[in-house]
């Protein structure tokens, strides 16, 4: 082997408010109570994971004009949960998805800087963008953002947050009771930002935090999103967890780094990945089939078909054939608050393709939704799953994975107990934490902004 083995990065995605999460299983617990989050975080830390990840949803989804009631619904506030988790963990990174559209830089900067202080340097921000007026109805600002501005606002928002946290250098607080000087300089935290989206100035009020800046994640997949990540993110939360698609994405994004003067190890690619474990591969395959049927009930199958058909299909039998009517191509969409409906750019073609597929395989509506929507990435015995994950990472399909269990809150336990020890045995995953901050775990440099002359003077 000419190439040294890459070290795998692993993270834990708290089961989300979507149909990957199986709530009907007797083992499924609360997705709101703090005890669930504490169990999940402690499992991830016991397994020496890099971080825990929380997704975002700022409005309950609707379909057909009514609140969507078939998936797990509801979630707690991201910052508040992460701050509490800092009390029950010591090393685990704490990553929150926070929208740049329905927030203001000063507030978000102080929340991440506060979280970083309160966790001893473990905060990370998955920057997401939004423009939909549907979500905007929950905010005093409303759905004010034209779609074409969402990345320009996101970019400027992120740059502004960096300016705010960088306005403190780390050497301002003297707190010298003898001289009576608390601050070195009355201008600590001064900033001026003038731009298209934000025109703000004053003084930031949170001193420099242990990591300096939160670790930045980006999740967008468009060309614009990839450029945004290449320009300044520390990691990408991607959706390409298969070997081929993962390698293509990995190569594409890593090759964009050079033009920003960045090295390939300065941006980690971490796809979301689900898994199903059992003692043997065959048992895992059987279990995976059961899980898929739990994830897609007959009612869920009809609702998912509506994403493409964009019309009420409640009269159809989920165990029967696909509708022979065509999708409604109207402007307004039956499902609101979902990103995935945009995946079907040509609903007529998708409908035709699915009808042919279902006819050829003898699939019902439910079978089709189960098979085409299958997001199970790693299915097998612990040995198989550990080997596959390692192969993918060594083959540059990713730098690791953000694992998405389907049971709250115990869905990570088996992975921690059976797969992680095998990766540790192979020397591709840490046996213990070496540093204390999330930057340490991810191998990222500290964004030290103390200019040389200031550093020399202090």
């Amino acid at each position, binding site marked *: 082997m000419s190439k040294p083995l890459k070290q795998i990065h692993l993270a834990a995605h708290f089961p989300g408010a979507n149909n990957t999460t199986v709530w009907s299983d007797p083992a499924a617990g609360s997705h709101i109570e703090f005890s669930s989050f504490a169990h999940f975080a402690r499992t991830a830390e016991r397994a020496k994971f890099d971080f825990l990840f929380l997704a975002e949803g700022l409005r309950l989804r609707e379909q057909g004009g009514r609140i969507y009631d078939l998936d797990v619904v509801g979630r707690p506030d991201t910052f508040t949960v992460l701050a509490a988790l800092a009390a029950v963990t010591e090393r685990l990174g704490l990553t929150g998805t926070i929208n740049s559209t*329905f927030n203001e830089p000063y507030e978000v900067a102080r929340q991440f800087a*506060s979280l970083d202080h309160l966790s001893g340097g473990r905060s990370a921000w998955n920057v997401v963008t939004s423009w939909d007026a549907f979500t905007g109805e929950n905010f005093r600002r409303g759905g004010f953002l034209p779609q074409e501005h969402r990345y320009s606002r996101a970019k400027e928002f992120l740059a502004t947050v960096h300016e705010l946290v960088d306005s403190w250098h780390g050497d301002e607080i003297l707190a010298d009771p003898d001289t009576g000087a608390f601050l070195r300089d009355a201008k600590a935290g001064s900033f001026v930002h003038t731009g298209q989206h934000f025109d703000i100035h004053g003084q930031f009020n949170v001193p420099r935090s242990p990591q300096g800046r939160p670790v930045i994640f980006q999740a967008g997949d468009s060309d614009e999103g990839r450029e945004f990540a290449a320009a300044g993110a520390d990691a990408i939360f991607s959706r390409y967890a298969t070997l081929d698609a993962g390698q293509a994405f990995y190569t594409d994004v890593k090759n964009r780094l050079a033009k920003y003067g960045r090295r390939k190890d300065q941006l980690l690619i971490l796809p979301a990945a689900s898994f199903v474990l059992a003692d043997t591969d065959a048992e895992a395959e059987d279990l995976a089939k059961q899980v898929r049927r739990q994830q897609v009930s007959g009612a869920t199958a009809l609702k998912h078909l509506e994403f493409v058909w964009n019309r009420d299909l409640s009269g159809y039998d989920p165990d029967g054939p696909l509708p022979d009517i065509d999708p409604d191509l109207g402007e307004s969409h039956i499902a609101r608050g979902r990103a995935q409906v945009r995946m079907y750019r040509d609903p007529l073609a998708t409908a035709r393709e699915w009808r042919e597929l279902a006819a050829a395989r003898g699939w019902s509506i439910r079978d089709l939704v189960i098979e085409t929507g299958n997001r199970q990435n790693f299915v097998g015995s612990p040995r198989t799953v550990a080997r596959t994950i390692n192969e993918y990472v060594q083959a540059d399909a990713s730098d690791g994975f953000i694992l998405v269990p389907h049971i709250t809150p115990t869905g990570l336990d088996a992975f921690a107990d059976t797969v992680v020890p095998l990766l540790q045995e192979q020397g591709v995953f840490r046996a213990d934490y070496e540093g204390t901050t999330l930057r340490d775990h991810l191998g990222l440099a500290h964004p030290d902004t103390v200019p040389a002359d200031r550093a020399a003077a202090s």
Partner: protein
Amino acid sequence: MSPTPSSPAASSTAATPLHLAVALDGTGWHPASWREPVARPRDLFTAGYWADLVAEAERGLLDFVTIEDGLGLQSSRYGEPDGRTDQVRGRLDAVLIASRVAPLTRHIGLVPTVVTTHTEPFHLSKAIATLDYVSTGRAGLRAQITARPFEADHFGRRVIPPFEDHGSPAVTALLEEAADWIEVVRRLWDSWEDDAEIRDVATGRFVDRAKLHYIDFEGAHFSVKGPSITPRPPQGQPLVTALAHQSAPYRLVGRQADVGYVTPHDTGQARASVAEIRAEQERAGRADQPLHVFGDLTVFLDDDAAAAEDRRGRLDALAGEPYTGDARVFTGTATQLADLLQEFAETGLSGFRLRPAVAGHDLPAVTRALVPELQRRGVFRTAYRADTLRGNLGLDRPANRYAAV
């Protein structure tokens, strides 16, 4: 004008148990407090500092702590930065401090300050609901407006005129907006009925959407659709509190609060404040709902009065000026403070929020000297009686405004 018998303040007498909270702000309320040997100013931005303070307050069986906050650097002048370097500057987000200490405590209420002027009620509603989950029923908020133009400049979305005084029309408008803000937060807490989550495997439904409610708030300043993304918190309605010095904020307390803080300097002022808040409460049509009025006092507490005076004098000398604030400053012993609190309690105040002049000194003096003194007099609990903050304050878990009766 007079409160109904169900109001906790109604039967306040010397024999009625008092409620006690402490207000945490940096190293304490005296601007030179950070220079005291017990102050730990270099730990201010660590979790351990706050965990220790709140643990001390819980050791004293206090009802709750409040945590100060603001969307700008502290200043000794209300309307503008003061350019000073000799006082504590910088702070962490109070909601996150409260959440960080919640899993480390079991009984004490956690009441961070939240600013209503520049923030989204949707975000703060779910944040406080989540604090209530994290603390299993011990969350509250202290709603605060900001009329500081330099804080508005941190957001760049509105211009706030130069600050005149707390009674100016601009401030009154911000208080009106705060009332709307609290209304939205409260409606969002009720936007899920308690039994909305059904997990009905037979029908495949996780929630009963008939029990999720749009709040459809439309106000002069903003509109919010709802429902919340966070289910109704353990207390149903976490505690809403506000500090009030004069008529317009008394109205806010009367309309929207569970606990109002007032700053009387004598019993006459205390009576007047309580009367005005009760009148506002009645005007708002909620005379039958419990509403605590707490007196705020800044305290220098020592074993003998001379020591307290000396300490205050020493700190004033370091600060270069005598400390005065909105609240009365008490200097003396635990016995003297207990006497004063009981005297004030006869005016209709049902509790007190004490502001330790030096957190590292006066907080332990409250928990280890004042509390035992009040316990000896039979006016303070000897153990926590309830599992929730509302419970310890004698407040019921409210019915949901959207639930069909």
